[in-house]
């Protein structure tokens, strides 16, 4: 290697860089890893880097000695300047700018831009000296040596091994620069944690202290951990990073004051200072300048926050408990009151723990506060967790899967948020905490077959997979992308489903952008609507129906209103127990009401004449059923409202038959007949289902009214018919009052039901007794017979 002549600036810079790379503190050899990182940061194509390493002789040596390192740096500068890589050019190129290394995400650029923004109002990269300088990788190294400077933050490793050279010049220049802290250094500064290590300079602390109170705050913590933490690997206490970070704010002014010239002492000093507070100012400036929204989190910031988050909680989807967060943020030396306010702002879901987004928001607020911004009264939109998710999607390297998943839902979330603010909070958690569960979420979505079909149709129509948490699409073999989308869509769907529960229609209308989401929503919403709409309660079976069904009356009576034959079958249930006064008596009170109601109509009984003969033989059988019939009759009115008028009419007729027989029964006298008639009527009415007992009752009542009129008329049947007709007009009335009457009748029916049930049990008991009696009698008879024979 030819000898290399470096300018002073270059010399300093390179030595700084070398120190930065000299992780082993050998002062002789720069670690390959660091060097390679550095070279990568130079943003040169890899072939060039290879060429450089070869040229500088490292390949030969197998490691980077100081000279090789310097040569490499020079070559990098040459390459960055666009000149061909030649060994000869090492010394020939004049005024070569210092090699620029990009730290992290264009931090260097940012810094440069920030640095010179004020100065030049340009985003031009400042002379490498300045730009590069602030990054004191060397500082970091120095820290390792235990300088009082703050420990390096576990920030980007790539950091910029910039401008360690500046360190050498801090003293003279530092007083010049009294840094005022410029505001939002934030993440950059954190990243630049290394810079903090620059605390090695004795002057720096002084200089640093000068600019800002904030710095002093950091000093202590910085000094504390300084020894412990080298660079990134150690976890320099985040607060230290924070502090240095905050202190960076002071740096920006100095940096801003830096002339956009080649490294000057002033620049260096300022940069040095910035180094201590480091690079934050640049970044801060950049940040402040670059932001339209002061609360927006840049990528670097976010990455820094994420790294900090990892130090507390390795799981990026997990929570930081309140106590841990408290300690963390307490290190920032903000007053507790402000920290408390920041917490209130950032704990979006008020759960006492910070998710990644909440943590980033809180951190950002701390940084801003440190930089002099006042805390907002409420959380700025850009810091809202839901939005942060969006930002996160590109940032977070590790949870790529989550990111991938969250990507699509994230598109939706922002849209969703306006529509479904209630879900906003849920979203970040959903996205962060459980991609798997998010995928699972859709499963519980209520899916009706119609919904599934709707979804299918929707999918086919839209061609998106989103909606179907439901099976149909899932069953299909979607492409992987679709599958990937599915969870998102499923999440959407889940959210949609959930949201639909809240306001499906709202979500629809308010989300124009994410078409897929819209589709999903549209897909789900109708479905959900369907689901929501759906189940009109199945038409309740008529009480008479149920009752009758229980008694199998429908079946028995359906076929024929006359049901003469059927009636016996129905009636045949009870053994031929002679109608007892008891049952009749018991039934009387039960059926009494009805009987009374039927009393009037009973007179008509024209039909009764026809039916009565049928019923008469069955009357004994009716004994037990009388109550039921009566009950049925009573129920019929209740079921009336549900029946349309036609059926009512038909039933009325049947009921007319019923009451007619009832009437006839009554006219006959035995309550059984009445009850049987009632039963018949009930049966008849129950057959068609609608014999609304109420109307029947009313009819009966009206019949009562009419009865006196029709009583004497010719055929009772006609009377009954007249009664029926008379009642028909009453039907509308009853229809009008149906609801109340229905309810009333329902109540009455229930009462009668219970009474009848009791009666039934009693009758059964009586039946048993009778049977026993009968058996005993028969036995006696047999015993007597032989005697008789004898």
């Amino acid at each position, binding site marked *: 290697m030819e000898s290399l002549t470096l300018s002073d600036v270059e010399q300093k810079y390179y030595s700084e860089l070398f120190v930065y790379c000299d992780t082993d503190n050998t002062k002789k050899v720069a670690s390959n890893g660091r060097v390679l990182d550095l070279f990568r940061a130079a943003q040169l194509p890899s072939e060039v880097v290879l060429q450089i390493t070869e040229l500088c002789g490292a390949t030969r040596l197998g490691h980077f000695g100081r000279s090789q390192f310097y040569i490499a740096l020079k070559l990098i500068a040459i390459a960055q300047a666009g000149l061909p890589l030649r060994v000869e050019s090492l010394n020939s190129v004049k005024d070569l700018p210092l090699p620029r290394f990009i730290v992290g995400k264009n931090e260097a650029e940012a810094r440069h831009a920030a640095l010179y923004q004020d100065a030049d109002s340009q985003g031009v990269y400042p002379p490498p000296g300045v730009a590069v300088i602030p990054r004191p990788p060397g500082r970091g190294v120095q820290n390792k040596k235990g300088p009082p400077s703050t420990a390096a933050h576990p920030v980007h490793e790539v950091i910029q091994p910039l401008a360690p050279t500046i360190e050498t010049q801090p003293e003279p220049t530092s007083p010049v620069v009294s840094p005022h802290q410029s505001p939002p250094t934030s993440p950059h500064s954190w990243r630049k944690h290394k810079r903090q290590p620059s605390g090695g300079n004795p002057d720096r602390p002084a200089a640093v202290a000068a600019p800002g109170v904030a710095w002093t705050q950091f000093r202590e913590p910085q000094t504390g951990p300084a020894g412990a933490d080298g660079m990134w690997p150690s976890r320099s206490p985040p607060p230290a990073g924070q502090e240095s970070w905050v202190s960076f704010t002071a740096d920006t002014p100095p940096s801003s004051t830096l002339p956009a010239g080649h490294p000057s002492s002033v620049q260096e000093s300022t940069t040095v200072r910035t180094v201590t507070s480091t690079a934050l100012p640049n970044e801060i400036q950049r940040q402040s300048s670059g932001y339209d929204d002061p609360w927006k989190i840049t990528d670097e910031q976010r990455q820094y926050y994420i790294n900090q988050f990892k130090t507390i909680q390795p799981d990026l989807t997990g929570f930081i408990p*309140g*106590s841990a*967060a*408290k300690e963390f*943020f*307490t290190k920032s030396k903000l007053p*507790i*009151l402000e*920290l*408390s*306010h920041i*917490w*209130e702002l950032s*704990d979006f879901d*008020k*759960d*006492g723990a910070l998710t990644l987004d909440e943590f980033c928001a809180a951190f950002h607020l701390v940084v801003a506060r440190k930089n002099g911004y006042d805390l907002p*009264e409420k959380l700025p939109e850009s810091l809202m967790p839901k939005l942060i998710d969006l930002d996160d999607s590109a940032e977070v390297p590790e949870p790529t899967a989550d990111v991938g998943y969250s990507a699509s839902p994230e598109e939706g979330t922002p849209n969703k948020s306006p529509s479904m603010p209630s879900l906003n909070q849920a979203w970040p958690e959903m996205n962060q905490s459980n991609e798997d569960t998010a995928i699972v979420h859709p499963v519980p979505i209520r899916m009706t077959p119609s919904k599934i079909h709707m979804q299918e149709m929707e999918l086919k129509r839209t061609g998106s997979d989103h909606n179907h948490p439901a099976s149909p699409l899932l069953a299909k073999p979607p492409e992987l992308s679709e599958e990937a989308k599915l969870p998102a869509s499923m999440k959407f769907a889940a959210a949609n489903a959930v949201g639909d529960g809240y306001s499906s229609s709202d979500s629809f209308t308010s989300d124009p952008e994410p078409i897929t989401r819209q589709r999903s929503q549209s897909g789900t919403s109708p479905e959900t609507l369907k689901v929501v709409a759906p189940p009109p309660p199945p038409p309740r079976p008529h009480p008479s129906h149920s009752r009758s069904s229980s008694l199998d009356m429908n079946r028995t009576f359906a076929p024929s209103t006359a049901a003469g034959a059927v009636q016996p079958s129905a009636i045949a249930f009870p053994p031929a127990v002679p109608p007892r006064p008891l049952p009749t008596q018991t039934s009387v009170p039960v059926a009494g009401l009805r009987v009374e109601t039927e009393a009037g109509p009973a007179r008509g009984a024209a039909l009764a004449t026809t039916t009565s003969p049928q019923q008469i033989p069955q009357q004994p059988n009716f004994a037990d059923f009388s109550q039921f019939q009566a009950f049925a009759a009573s129920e019929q009115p209740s079921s009336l409202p549900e029946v349309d008028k036609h059926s009512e009419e038909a039933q009325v007729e049947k009921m007319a038959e019923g009451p007619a027989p009832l009437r006839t029964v009554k006219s006959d006298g035995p309550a059984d007949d009445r009850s049987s008639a009632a039963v018949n009527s009930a049966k008849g009415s129950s057959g068609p289902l609608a014999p609304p007992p109420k109307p029947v009752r009313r009819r009966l009542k009206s019949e009562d009214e009419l009865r006196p009129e029709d009583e004497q008329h010719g055929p009772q049947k006609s009377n009954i018919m007249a009664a029926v007709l008379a009642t028909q007009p009453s039907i509308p009335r009853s229809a009008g009052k149906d609801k109340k009457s229905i309810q009333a009748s329902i109540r009455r029916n229930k009462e009668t039901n219970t009474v009848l049930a009791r009666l039934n049990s009693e009758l059964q008991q009586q039946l048993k007794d009778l049977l026993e009696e009968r058996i005993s009698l028969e036995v006696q008879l047999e015993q007597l017979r032989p005697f008789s024979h004898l």
Partner: protein
Amino acid sequence: MAVCIAVIAKENYPLYIRSVATQNELKFHYTVHTSLDVVEEKISSVGKALGDQRELYLGLLYPTEDYKVYGYVTNSKVKFVIVVDSSNTSLRDNEIRSMFRKLHNSFTDVMCNPFYNPGDPIQSKAFNGVVSGMMVQTG
């Protein structure tokens, strides 16, 4: 609309007290202090079903000629006292309950804040905002 809202800790010292009328503020303080006796009395009487929302809301503690005092106690024996001006169209019980509920919610938010040490005076802006929303909007 409340005239004075106070949050009293379990040990019966105030965590937060704010009145709407700057003058006579001491009067409200005194009123709240005296209401504590009534609160204690009500708490001691309700020994059984604790944790019931109804139990939390103590209702009208006592009326004076100018105002009424309502009480509410949480499960951790933190008491909320609201003094309402009697001249106001008497607020319905539900409204008072909802005010207490809001107070309770925002108080729990304050408690959740790890930076808040229980027993410290409440200085949360959010809590202040909630209370301001409930105070009488006098000029």
